[in-house]
């Protein structure tokens, strides 16, 4: 047999691999599809309740109202208002999120009537003492991570993509995350967070997705479990409203000051 022909024959089994997309490309394509399916919702308001549980099972409650505004070529704007615990009632948090550039954040302290610009380097810090870090609740932009598709699988009877992602922004508390994404609605069902030392830190699960404006899926409940501390947080959402006519003006420092 001709030497050239032999080489060709040996290469044939490799061809489909070379033509198909890499695991990185496939992971990215899934993230892009997730992002596209969640584009166009405009603005949203919702009530959020958090139940914080420590290892002994002691609970404490947080009640928060959230307003968000979708931005076309940037991260979303959001205004978070605290109702409970009562000592921080009226405290409000304004955030302009960005994909890779640090977010712009202001805090309104009602006792002093003071608007304070704060650093956004605390991405890995706990939100309100809960098991959710600021970065877990921040707006999800494609550029925030690099991706790697691991496999297709099923989770609780649903077909899922299993994708690994790596933070591309600074100050993340994670080395990587594994996401189980529902193939039908392109929404995460489960997330595993690995700390900077690559040890499993937390698991987040999403429950009872419902469509709003027919196609924007939002969960009713999220459960975060910290495997290293034994603490957990249940986050429930209520009264989602879309298209309430919010604009940039509802997300500036003047609006922050008059928020109650």
């Amino acid at each position: 047999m001709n030497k050239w022909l032999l080489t060709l024959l040996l290469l044939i089994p490799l061809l489909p691999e070379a033509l198909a997309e890499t695991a990185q490309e496939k992971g990215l394509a899934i993230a892009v599809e997730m992002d596209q399916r969640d584009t166009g919702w405009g603005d949203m308001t919702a009530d959020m309740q958090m139940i914080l549980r420590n290892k002994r099972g002691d609970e404490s409650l947080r009640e928060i109202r959230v307003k968000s505004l979708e931005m076309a070529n940037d991260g979303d704007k959001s205004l978070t208002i605290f109702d409970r615990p009562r000592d921080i009632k009226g405290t409000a948090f304004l955030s302009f999120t960005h994909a890779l550039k640090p977010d712009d954040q202001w805090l309104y302290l009602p006792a002093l009537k003071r608007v304070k610009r704060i650093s956004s380097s605390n991405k890995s810090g706990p939100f309100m003492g809960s098991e959710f870090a600021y970065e877990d609740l921040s707006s999800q932009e494609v550029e925030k991570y690099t991706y790697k598709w691991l496999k297709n699988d099923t989770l609780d009877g649903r077909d899922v993509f299993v994708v690994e992602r790596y933070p591309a922004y600074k100050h993340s508390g994670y080395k990587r995350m594994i996401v189980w994404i529902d193939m039908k609605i392109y929404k995460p069902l489960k997330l595993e967070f690995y700390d900077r030392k690559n040890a499993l830190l937390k698991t987040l699960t999403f429950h009872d997705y419902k469509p709003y404006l027919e196609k924007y899926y939002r969960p009713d409940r999220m459960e975060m479990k910290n495997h290293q501390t034994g603490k957990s947080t249940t986050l429930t959402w209520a009264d989602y409203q879309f298209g309430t006519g919010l604009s940039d003006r509802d997300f500036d420092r003047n609006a922050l000051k008059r928020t109650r």
Partner: protein
Amino acid sequence: MQRLTRLLLLWLVVTPAMGGEWSGYVSGEVRLFPNSPAYPDQRGDNLSFSFEPQYYNEWDNGKQSFTFTPFLRFDQRDDERTHFDIRELTWLKAATDWELRVGVRKVFWGVTESRHLVDIINQTDLVENIDREEKLGQPMINLALIRDFGTIDLFLLPYFRERTFPGKNGRLRIPIPVDKDLVQYESGARERHVDSAIRWSNSIDIWDIGLSWFHGTSRDPLLIPVLDKRGTLKLAPRYDIIDQVGLDVQATQGSWLWKLEMIRRGGQGKSFTAFTGGFEYTFYGIQDSSADLGVLLEYLYDSRDDAAPTPFEDDVFAGMRLALNDAQSTEVLAGFIIDRNDGGATFNLEASRRLSDNWKLEVEARFFNGYERTDPAYTFRKDDYVEVKLSYHF
């Protein structure tokens, strides 16, 4: 006082029918003074209670609102500290490019931690705390114009509030009590002089900038020694008409906050300049924990030097802020302000921890050390204190 109490009671009965919501707090505090007082009539450890409810109602899709916040304090020993004030009684109307507020309010301007130089709209409620962060409600009409180049706030301040001063039984005061009955004004209109202010503020990239101008009655009085009718030496507060330009800037870059506040004031003796500038740097997630540790350093300057009626004319503030970021929001802010001339120093500590959804515990301590006779802080030399405050928030 009695009429106000009755009005307040009537309000409490009537408002549930109007909707809206009540929130607020009740606090009990004890101040422990380890040293015996420096001046006659001053007393020892002190108990005090305060109550600050807030009524809030909004309508017109949140574009209009009404807020009412009365404040009441009962003090065991100081009659001047026992007082009532309306902190807020405001109607607000917000439109797309303007916001109008009419009534009694509190406004804060500024960025630094050790001193609030630029903040001038409200009078200090000095009997509350010597940190000057407690303010009396200020009657005003405030129109905010919201433009692409920032927000312009216009203020008309039709009535002046006099500063509160501790009475003769109170601690943390100057040797001779200030007698408010002897008040002097530069303006013939006295407390009815209409003060005005304008402020431009904007946020550009990492910069948050405010530029302000105030014309009217100085919130800081000069204290003039006078003899009253009986021939007793008293201090009369004198309020001059001043012009003050203020600048406040913060640059937020990564874990750094760079801060500057600067004022130029004319009309109260010789014109003078004062500034506070420095930084706050935060180490996030120290020792692989959730806790953050911030380091603060600020320099405080006043061109009046030793003639300044403030202890902070050439001082350095160094402090740290520890936030555990736990479910109880445990926080500690501690620091020194050191006078670079006489070496006198004030140590401050403020700590707080939530006990439950409604209860909160706070500890505050101040120690005064090594001030020379000429320093205004010298009069506090025996007034080191530790305050423990328990509050119920509803």
